[in-house]
């Protein structure tokens, strides 16, 4: 799998080439080219900000299709619901109802991701205590943060907690549990994770810290929401006790919740991708002292804010906390004994200097110098009309050879002004009253050249701004809501 695989993608048909997403992307990974907002794979960290920003619903994410990929493929299927799933429904006060409903839906077994989170909480505590030299330890439950650090904060890689996300740990334990219970070989067992965000799809399909994920499929919370509703009612008639998570695991679904399980006073919890970038900058510069643990979540509010959820993040958070109340602290003793490989990364995260301008150090330096000089010629408005999110990004794009400086409408506008000034000066200064002479012919020829040049520049202006009418296939209905977000994986 491509190491720059990302789940978020553009549904070209819906894209109107507006500038909303390019401005919202925290890693400046989107450019409008030929009227479409295309994602630069190497820069994308799957945070989902463009999915939130796009009013045309043209940004979606790749994940599996429930019917196509699941039915009849495995002999035994285990659902791993994210902690967040139970916070998406109204009037659900017992998680066991939800877990029972998942079984009624057709899963042979269920295991809450929260239960694995409780194991990770215990192990994190030990890790922090044993690695004082690496304080502050940075959590790794959010794959977007992992991807961000991979491309932008190399000096913080050593501070990362080298642990899998809870869903991966859950998958490893669940698979062993299923094999022991059924005697089936591994390939007959399907492990299905129900995720609040596209980032975890990438974690599974393009693993960074392991060779292969034990999760077979990732479904979004919103993919399963409607399907599960009727089963919830049925489940209430005969609720099975399927819980494997206490409140510690449950709390992981919201920002600050991971720290709850650590009984740790000196921690910082930061959520929202921009705030996360800011704190990482500060950590890199050693501005933050006397902190043992830093909990980072790319979505506002933590996983309750994931783009594949249904419920308002604040409401979901309230429901989650309410449900966590009254639960025992942890129920992890009900799980199988876990092994180190359920928890620890198989390999270290590798720095990917994707933002480096050139192939070599020397080339990059020369290119940066050129970009700086070029940037000085742009108006500094960061208007986005060229398709790049800022004048700096635009200058770097030109130096990289992706676009030309004429894509800047302000530069083009100035050129047109100059041209039209020359043309009118030329016309006004013409005072000969001869006709059909050679001089007259020259005058006509020069005027033509000016007009042609201006037309070409105006045409270029069209290409640059490039907002094209939405193209629809003949006779095809389009509700503007995107196809379904179920692009093949």
């Amino acid at each position, binding site marked *: 799998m491509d190491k720059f695989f990302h789940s978020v993608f553009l549904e070209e048909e819906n894209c109107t080439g507006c500038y909303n997403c390019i401005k919202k992307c925290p890693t400046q990974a989107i450019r409008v080219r030929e009227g479409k907002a295309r994602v630069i794979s190497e820069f994308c960290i799957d945070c989902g900000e463009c999915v939130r920003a796009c009013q045309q619903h043209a940004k979606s994410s790749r994940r599996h299709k429930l019917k196509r990929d699941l039915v009849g493929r495995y002999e035994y299927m285990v659902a791993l619901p994210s902690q967040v799933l139970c916070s998406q429904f109204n009037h659900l006060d017992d998680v066991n109802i939800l877990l029972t409903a998942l079984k009624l839906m057709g899963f042979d077994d269920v295991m809450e991701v929260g239960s694995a989170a409780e194991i990770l909480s215990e192990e994190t505590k030990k890790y922090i205590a044993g690695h004082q030299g690496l304080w502050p330890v940075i959590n790794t439950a959010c794959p977007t943060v992992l991807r961000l650090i991979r491309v932008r904060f190399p*000096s913080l890689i050593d501070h990362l907690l080298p642990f899998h996300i809870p869903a991966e740990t859950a998958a490893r334990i669940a698979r062993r549990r299923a094999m022991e219970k059924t005697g089936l070989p591994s390939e007959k067992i399907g492990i299905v994770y129900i995720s609040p965000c596209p980032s975890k799809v990438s974690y599974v399909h393009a693993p960074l810290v392991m060779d292969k994920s034990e999760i077979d499929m990732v479904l979004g919370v919103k993919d399963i929401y409607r399907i599960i509703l009727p089963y919830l009612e049925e489940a209430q008639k005969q609720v099975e006790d399927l819980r494997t998570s206490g409140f510690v695991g449950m709390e992981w679904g919201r920002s600050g919740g991971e720290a709850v399980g650590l009984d740790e006073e000196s921690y910082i919890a930061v959520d929202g991708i921009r705030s996360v970038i800011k704190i990482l900058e500060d950590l890199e*510069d050693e501005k933050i002292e006397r902190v043992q643990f830093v909990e980072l979540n790319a979505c506002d509010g933590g996983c309750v804010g994931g783009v594949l959820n249904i419920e308002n993040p604040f409401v979901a958070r309230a429901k989650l906390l309410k449900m966590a109340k009254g639960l025992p602290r942890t129920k992890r003793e009900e799980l199988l004994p876990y092994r180190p490989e359920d928890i620890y990364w198989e390999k270290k995260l590798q720095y990917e200097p994707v*933002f*480096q*301008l050139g192939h*070599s150090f020397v080339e990059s*330096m020369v290119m*940066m110098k050129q970009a*700086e000089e070029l940037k000085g010629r742009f108006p500094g408005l960061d208007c986005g009309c060229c398709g790049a999110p800022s004048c700096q990004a635009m200058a770097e794009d030109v130096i990289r050879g992706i676009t030309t400086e004429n894509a800047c409408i302000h530069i083009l506008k100035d050129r047109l002004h100059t041209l039209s000034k020359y043309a009118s000066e030329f016309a006004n200064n013409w005072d000969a009253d001869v006709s059909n002479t050679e001089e007259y012919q020259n005058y006509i020829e020069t005027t033509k050249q000016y007009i042609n040049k201006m037309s070409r520049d105006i045409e270029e202006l069209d290409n640059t701004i490039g907002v094209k009418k939405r193209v629809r296939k003949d006779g095809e209905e389009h509700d503007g809501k995107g196809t379904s977000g179920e692009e093949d994986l």
Partner: protein
Amino acid sequence: MSEALLSLHYHVSPDDFQTAGEASSDVKNKLKKMGFPPEIVRKVAISMYEGEINMVIHAYGGEITVDIGMDEVRAVLKDKGPGIQDIGKAMEAGYSTASEKVRSMGFGAGMGLPNMKKYSDEMKIDTEIGVGTTVTLVVRLA
């Protein structure tokens, strides 16, 4: 010193703790884009940030010039502040002349100059009481 390939200039506003650090942050991101080793980037960022924040705390802002060459990064931080009374003391960890107001904001821990020294390969301070201070920080690649 080899010839600087790229020269960057920044103005540091007085008394503005919100924007303090913008210059060092910009330099940091540019160095990353130029492919400087992470450890070098970190040294430049930390030492330069300390210098920048000093200009906000003690002097009334100032100007920063960063010359980036093949083998070194050289930052010159120039202010028209009060000057440093006792450089020896200022170099001691924990010594600070920052005001109570500044300390209450979490700055002025007395680690500025020591950190600048620690994270740079060469540090030069030219200071004159009542005239200003120029700090030169050099981080070498080798």
